[in-house]
Structures are given as C-alpha cells and as structure tokens.
C-alpha cells in the first residue's frame, strides 16, 4: 500500500532534489545546461565548488538574499498585524457564525494566484483612481507624483495580499481554543483591556503566531512571480535570480547553487523558529 506513493515520490521528489545538489557541483555547459561529466577522452569536466565560490565572492548575491529575507520579514509582520484582529474577532464570535467568517477568509483563495496579483496591477496602475488620489494628496504638499506600480511598494502589497489567509487560519485555530474564563479571571484580578491582551491572550497565541509566520515567510522567500509582475527591474529577489539562471542565462549549476542556498536559508529559519516557538511555549 505504501509502495506506489513511496516509489513515485522517490522518483519525482527525492531523486530531483539529489540531482539538484549534484548539479550545483557541475560545470555549466557550453550552450547552457550542464557540461557533460566526460566531454571526450581528453577533457574531463568532473565536479567543482566554483559556483559556491562565485556565490560568496560577489556581494550582490548576499545582498539579494538579505533583501529577500527583509521582504519576507516585512510581509510576515504586516500579515500578522492585519490577521490578528480578524482572527481574534472570529474566535470570539458565536460558534455558528465562525465557520462562515473563516470561509470568507478562504474564499479569495478560490481565485487564481495570478488573478489576485493582476488585481493589484489594476488598482496601482497610473490611471486608476487609487494612484490618482495618492498623487493628488502628494501634489497638495508640493511633492513629485510617484509611480505605485512596478515598485517595491507594489511587491510588498502583492505579497501581503496573496499570503494573508495563511496567517489568519493558524492564528484563528489557536485563538479559538483559549478559555474565556482566563480573561474573566484576569479582569477580576484588576487587569485592564491592554494588560488582558498582552499578559494573557498574546502569550497564549504565540504557537499560532509562529506557525502562521512560517506559512507566510517560507513561500514569500522563494517567490518570483510577484516581483516579476508587480516589481520594477530593480526589485529582483532570490526567486527571480533562480528563475533567471534556469530559463534566462541557462547557467544551471549556478541556478542549482542558488536553490541550495535558498533551501539552507529556509531550513535555518525553520530551525530558529522551532527553537523560539519552544521557548514561547515555555513562556506561555
């Protein structure tokens, strides 16, 4: 019973991952792709760590990685700020309306990912009412008009919009389990609204915050389509860099190296988050 799925995943998930690790140690082919291991009897291409040296020798790659981590962190934080009040409201609503409220959060998922990104092309476009309004306000203060589309701002808005439900759901699942008696007890002991939130609700919700953050942070870190569609030429992130190596310049060894570095970054961050989450549980 476990045989067929095991073999399938071994073939189309494990093997490709191993191939990618190997490819990162290969030489690039003359016309893109990979150089053959043995070109002919005279020249042996073999394996190399050249691509890794290249990655660490040019500051630009470190910069793109740092920028991507920053964008992913900013997206996670904004999603958290937007999702928290919504998740809290749903969790504190009567049981019978909760399902509908959650469904209303999931429903935008029903539209294609590209459609959700495309919607922001319309809203942020120079002729749209939103851009006109923003530039009208800027003009009042004597400032130059700004171009909202094809900017880092547009990329951030798109990232938040597409990933927001991933933050709401785990937060809600966590908040729903809180015993309301805890808040009553805190109130009886003289805690005001502010204290009740920061001393009771928030610490208890840390596991939800951590799982939501992972669900937003990881896909954003590797995202290429949103910067590709909503960003300008300068808004390249890790994903765009990888896409460029595989489909543009066709330097597959370097593309593989970038993918491995992305994997390592994700694993590092997951490891860090689980450690933090472990401490959070202790704190709660």
């Amino acid at each position, binding site marked *: *019973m*476990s045989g*067929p799925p*095991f073999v*399938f*995943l071994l073939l*189309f*998930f494990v*093997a*490709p991952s191993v*191939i*990618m690790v190997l*490819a990162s140690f290969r030489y690039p082919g003359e016309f893109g*792709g990979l150089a053959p291991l043995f070109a002919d009897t005279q020249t042996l291409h073999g394996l190399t760590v050249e691509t890794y040296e290249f990655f660490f020798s040019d500051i630009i790659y470190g910069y793109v990685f740092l920028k991507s981590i920053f964008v992913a962190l900013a997206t996670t934080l904004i999603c958290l700020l*937007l999702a928290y*009040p*919504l998740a809290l*409201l*749903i969790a*504190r*609503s009567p049981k019978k309306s909760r*399902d509908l409220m*959650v469904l*209303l959060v*999931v429903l935008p*998922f*029903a*539209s*294609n*990912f*590209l*459609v*959700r990104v*495309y*919607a*922001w092309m*319309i*809203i942020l476009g120079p*002729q749209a*009412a939103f851009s006109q309004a923003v530039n009208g306000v800027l003009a009042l203060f004597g400032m130059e008009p700004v171009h909202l589309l094809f900017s880092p701002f547009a990329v951030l808005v798109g990232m938040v*919009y597409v990933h*927001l439900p991933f933050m709401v*759901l*785990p937060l*809600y699942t966590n908040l729903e389990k809180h015993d309301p008696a805890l*808040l009553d007890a805190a109130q009886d002991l003289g805690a005001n*609204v502010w204290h009740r939130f920061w001393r009771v609700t928030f610490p208890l919700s840390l596991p939800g915050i951590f799982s939501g953050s992972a669900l937003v942070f990881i*896909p954003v870190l*590797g*995202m*290429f*389509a949103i910067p*590709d*569609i909503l960003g300008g030429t300068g808004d390249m992130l890790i*994903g765009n860099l990888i896409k460029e190596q*595989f489909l543009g310049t066709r330097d*597959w060894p370097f593309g*593989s190296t970038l*993918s491995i570095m*992305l994997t390592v970054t994700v694993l590092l961050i997951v490891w860090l988050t689980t450690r933090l989450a472990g401490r959070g549980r202790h704190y709660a």
Partner: protein
Amino acid sequence: MRRGPWLWAAALAVYAFLYLPLAIVVVYSFNDSRLNAEWVGFTLHWYDVLIHDEEMLLAAGNSLFIAFVSAFVATLLGTMAGMAIHRYDLKLLNFMALTPVAMPEILLGVSLLLFFIQVLNLTLGMLSIVLAHITFSIGFVAVIVRARLAGMDDSLFEAARDLGASPWETFRYVTFPLILPAVIAGGLMAFTLSIDDFVITFFTAGVGVQTLPLRIYSMIKIAVTPEVNAVSTLLMLLTLSMIVLASRFAPDVLKGKT
C-alpha cells in the same frame, strides 16, 4: 464575548482588503472600455473576445486535461499514502509527501526541470506537467485522508477482521466507504491545485504547451486587457464551485483543521 468596536472596524477593513481587489477585477470584466481605469458602460464584449480566443481555449483545454489526469493519479497515490501513514506511522513517507509542499514552490519546479531534461531526457510538455502536478498533490490528498482516518475508531477495522473479512474485503466494505468523502474532497483539492498552479507549471511546461495560468501570465506581462478580467471571473466561478463541492464532502477541510 469581548468584541469591541475597534476589533470590528479592524476586521471589516481586512475583509474589505481581501475582497475589493477581486470585486474590481469582476466589475471591469463587464466594462465597455479597453482601460481598467474608469467605468464606461456595461458590455459582454470581453467574454465574446474570450470565447473566440483560440489560444486561450486551447490553454483551458490543456489545463482541464492535466487537472483530470493528475488529480486522478494523485488521489490514488495520496489515498494509499494517507492510509499507510495512518496505519504504520510511516514518518519517512509522511516527510516525502509533505516536504514538496512545505518548501518554496520554485524549488520543486527547478529540480523537476533539471531531472526531466538531464536524467529522463524527456521533452517538456503535457507529461512533465502532469508528473509535476501529481508530485505536489499527493501530500494534500494524504493529509485529508489521514485526518479522516484519525477521526475514526480503529476497532471498526479490527471488528471486520474478527468477523472473518479478508484484508481486501475489510478495505472494500468498511474502510473505503468510510474514507470516501475524504477521498473525493482530496481529489477535488488536487484538481483545483492543478488548475491553479502557475510556478511549477512555468518550469515544467517547456515551450510547446500552454495552460490557463501560463496564458494569463504571458497576457499580463504584455498588456493589461479586460479579456484577462473576463477569464479571471470565469476561473473564480470554477474554483468556487469546486470549493463548495469539496466542502460538502469534507466540511473540515475548509476550516483549517486538517
């Protein structure tokens, strides 16, 4: 319970943020103007353009075909995986099924691209897309089936065996009818994921085959036209009906509880 006016205001603002952009896409699909900038008048012109756009129709056909085949195979393999993981507590299989979905999508896309071309020497096209879609769908089906099994009493299966049912009969007359709703929900989920996928298809499609998302991508990279709004609106309707269907078979899937 404590639901102050500020909480309501913040939550409603977030709901508005979720729905306004999509509403704009839908509304402008009926707008009698080439620009998505201001409302001019009602028209079905863009839907007319759409149904005469042969490339788009071909892409839609491809998408449906790929979704049917990959959902079918992924449901089969995912159900097996979900049952095996539940019964034998297979951590490795669980890891193999879930990791492709947990990592950034681009990683599965490029590693499959490398594998198909470098190792299998396969010309990218329908087959490579279908194989890629099965790979990322198995995990979703497995999770849904496994959740259903976890919610059931294992003694049901033991009772069947005690009463003399063979392993096959136990599966055929006890296990399968019980997990059927989850299997159907998983299949619908796999179908929706396949129809919607852009990133992994982008890397495994090659040059010959277009799917709906690939077609939409190349259209919005060139120019914003209300035809995109029209196809988006129809796609929303399709996925919406799939979600409604899936929720009838496994209501918990939508509640973020799986």
